[in-house]
């Protein structure tokens, strides 16, 4: 999977895909066959071997999300986790995003590499709920999707098989009406000791008039050998990297596609798309890391970067036949940027619960993801942590405190450390954000280190989201009381949140060209052979981690691409390489 150093500058393919994350990789794999030539263009690179990435992270003094994935030449593919200059690692996001005029900072980031951000994702794959697809109809807020849960359900099943999702069908069938037509492809990831204790104490408990249930979280993480990858052995490092490939990442489907003769061209930063007079989009212009430029021609073009990079590329492509940018007749490209906003409550349990073992989270509480309250305020999902207070620097900070402040050493230090850390509890809430056209990605006047205009982001939370933090924190407080754990401190300021890494919106799917960017099949309303896939197409975001929905939509789009491909002519034979 290594890019050639010198390439032809004019090549034709049946399908050109920009971006090799989960959406692009699944589509490449689904479409590649002997008579369908697929090109995957990726701005980043494959990089070093997995074990070398693990060692790079282990020996790093500053262990960031992007540490394992430092590109061989960061200046060529800067991103919110990858500073052009290593000294900027702690504030890479702020160096890359231009948020000068934003009321709040958009906090989530992504990786630009072969396989995309699935390398560092946690792996959770809850589906969206039926009402998440009809927020406007059901609650009078947000927007309706042009498809319903029942339309996507068969594709969720296919996506779960493709990624390899471990889950408990009995627990998850019909949660808030989300029926399941097929079981998960493998049984659930076992809950942690902590999960089991908390679930036992919450059995038959009602909070806010609702029965609270702890459910094992479906995850694209093997509970048994699956698709040539081993079962999870609980290395407790899903974020930032699974050392054994038990957790799915999109390099799985990049490799499958390449084996089926898809062409992967990495270190190619796509800088512009071109619109033909007939409104089709065939030409994809890119700039290689080595300075050479290239153009690929596709009968169909698929934009599969994330919600920020996809919007950026479409806006960068403004030209004579697309003055506001490609696919942007609605002027909505870049609008409605979303994320899930999170708060973590740290607490101390009376009994040891033994954190820092197993995947960082294996169970959650789905009870508060839907209800009539969504007319007034956002829904939230709760997750139970297996990672103690790692987000506050544990266990290192505990050692430092005990040694420096309390002068502990020897057996006393060891015993106290065990006592303190083994009781660390984390419960987090993840709150939905409504689409707001003012939350927008535009083009900065400043360029990145590769000479491409940086994304400018404007982001602000609305009362709908802010007012959900109060009930969510109240619920967490009640759970902590029931499980006999004492919160360390609770920050109730709704503006003090963290991002979930769930970059969504900006190219919303919808019914018509005036109010949306793509149709229900992820086809641009403006360009019949241009597909935009990924989290960018979500009209609303519910409270589900987005990847399994991205995957389901991508597989659905792939089916549509295969069906419509014959409509688009191939270039004259003489133009083929």
């Amino acid at each position, binding site marked *: 999977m290594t890019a050639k150093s010198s390439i032809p500058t004019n090549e034709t393919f049946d399908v050109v895909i920009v971006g090799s994350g989960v959406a692009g990789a699944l589509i490449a794999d689904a479409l590649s066959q002997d008579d369908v030539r697929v090109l995957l263009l990726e701005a980043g690179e494959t990089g070093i071997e997995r074990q070398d990435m693990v060692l790079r992270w282990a020996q790093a003094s500053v262990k960031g999300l992007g540490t394992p994935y430092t590109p061989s030449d960061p200046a060529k593919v800067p991103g919110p986790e990858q500073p052009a200059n290593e000294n900027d690692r702690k504030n890479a996001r702020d160096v890359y995003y231009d948020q000068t005029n934003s009321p709040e900072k958009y906090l989530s980031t992504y990786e630009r590499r072969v396989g995309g951000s699935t390398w560092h994702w946690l792996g959770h794959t809850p589906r969206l709920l039926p009402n998440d697809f009809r927020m406007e109809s059901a609650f009078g807020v947000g927007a309706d999707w042009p498809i319903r849960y029942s339309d996507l359900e068969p594709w969720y099943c296919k996506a779960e098989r493709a990624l390899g999702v471990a889950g408990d069908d009995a627990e998850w069938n019909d949660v808030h009406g989300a029926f399941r037509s097929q079981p998960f492809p493998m049984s659930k990831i076992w809950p942690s000791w902590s999960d089991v204790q908390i679930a036992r104490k919450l059995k038959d408990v009602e909070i806010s008039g609702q029965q609270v249930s702890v459910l094992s979280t479906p995850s694209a993480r093997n509970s048994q050998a699956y698709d040539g990858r081993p*079962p999870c052995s609980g290395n407790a490092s899903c974020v930032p990297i699974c050392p054994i490939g038990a957790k799915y990442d999109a390099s799985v489907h990049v490799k499958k596609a390449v084996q089926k003769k898809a062409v992967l061209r990495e270190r190619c930063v796509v800088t512009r798309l071109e619109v033909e007079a007939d409104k089709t989009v065939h030409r994809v212009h890119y700039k290689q890391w080595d300075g050479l430029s290239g153009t690929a021609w596709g009968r169909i073009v698929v934009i599969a970067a994330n919600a920020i990079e996809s919007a950026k590329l479409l806006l960068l492509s403004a030209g004579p036949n697309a003055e506001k940018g490609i696919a942007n007749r609605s002027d909505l490209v870049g609008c409605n940027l979303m994320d899930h906003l999170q708060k973590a409550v740290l607490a101390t349990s009376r009994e040891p619960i*033994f954190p820092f073992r197993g995947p960082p989270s294996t169970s959650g509480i789905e009870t508060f993801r839907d209800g009539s309250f969504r007319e007034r305020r956002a829904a939230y999902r709760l997750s139970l942590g297996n990672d103690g207070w790692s987000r506050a620097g544990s266990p290192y900070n505990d050692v430092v405190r005990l040694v420096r402040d309390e002068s502990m050493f020897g057996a006393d230090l060891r015993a106290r450390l065990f006592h303190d850390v083994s009781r660390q509890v984390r419960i987090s809430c993840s709150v939905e954000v409504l689409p707001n056209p003012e939350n927008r990605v535009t083009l900065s006047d400043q360029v990145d280190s590769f000479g491409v205009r940086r994304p400018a982001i404007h982001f602000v939370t609305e009362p709908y989201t802010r007012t959900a933090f109060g009930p969510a924190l109240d619920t967490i407080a009640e759970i902590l009381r029931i499980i006999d754990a004492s919160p360390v401190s609770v920050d109730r300021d709704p503006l003090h949140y963290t991002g979930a890494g769930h970059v969504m919106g900006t190219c919303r799917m919808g019914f018509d060209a005036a109010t949306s960017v793509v149709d229900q099949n992820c086809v641009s309303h403006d360009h019949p052979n241009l597909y935009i896939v990924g989290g960018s197409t979500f009209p609303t975001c519910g409270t589900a981690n987005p990847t399994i929905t991205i995957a389901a939509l991508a597989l659905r789009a792939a089916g549509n691409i295969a069906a419509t491909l014959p409509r688009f002519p191939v270039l004259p034979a003489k133009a083929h390489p």
Partner: protein
Amino acid sequence: MKKEIKDQGHHPLTVPADKIKGFLRLSQALTACELDPVLAGTYFVRGQQAFGAQFEALINQFETLTSQVRTPAFVIRQHIFPDPTLGPIAKAILLLWYIGAIQNTSTGDWQIESADDYYRALVWDAIGAHPPTLSNGYFGHWKYPPEM
């Protein structure tokens, strides 16, 4: 593809064995753990580099006081930790064993030199866990309490 990872080797041992033995005795008193003499050699060099002459002064002070029929724990508690110069160095050595890193006083960053230092840090075993990325466990072990 060109490998970018440095070798994980230790510092060459450039110090006499008896000095390392003294450092090892101090380290074992601080940690109450059986420690690897080879890793002690590595950390001796790091201590020298970080703290200069005061580092060896710390070891000498510990050796002198413990030879006077005082227990190592008593010496650390009553003489070493309260010492305004030697106390912080002793605590830094203890933290080096527990975290595998020394804090840079100007930047506040913890400086780690090799992946081996990360994986051999004592903190993980002390809390009944393992360094993230290396569980050495089987599927589902997290469902049960750790074997201590």
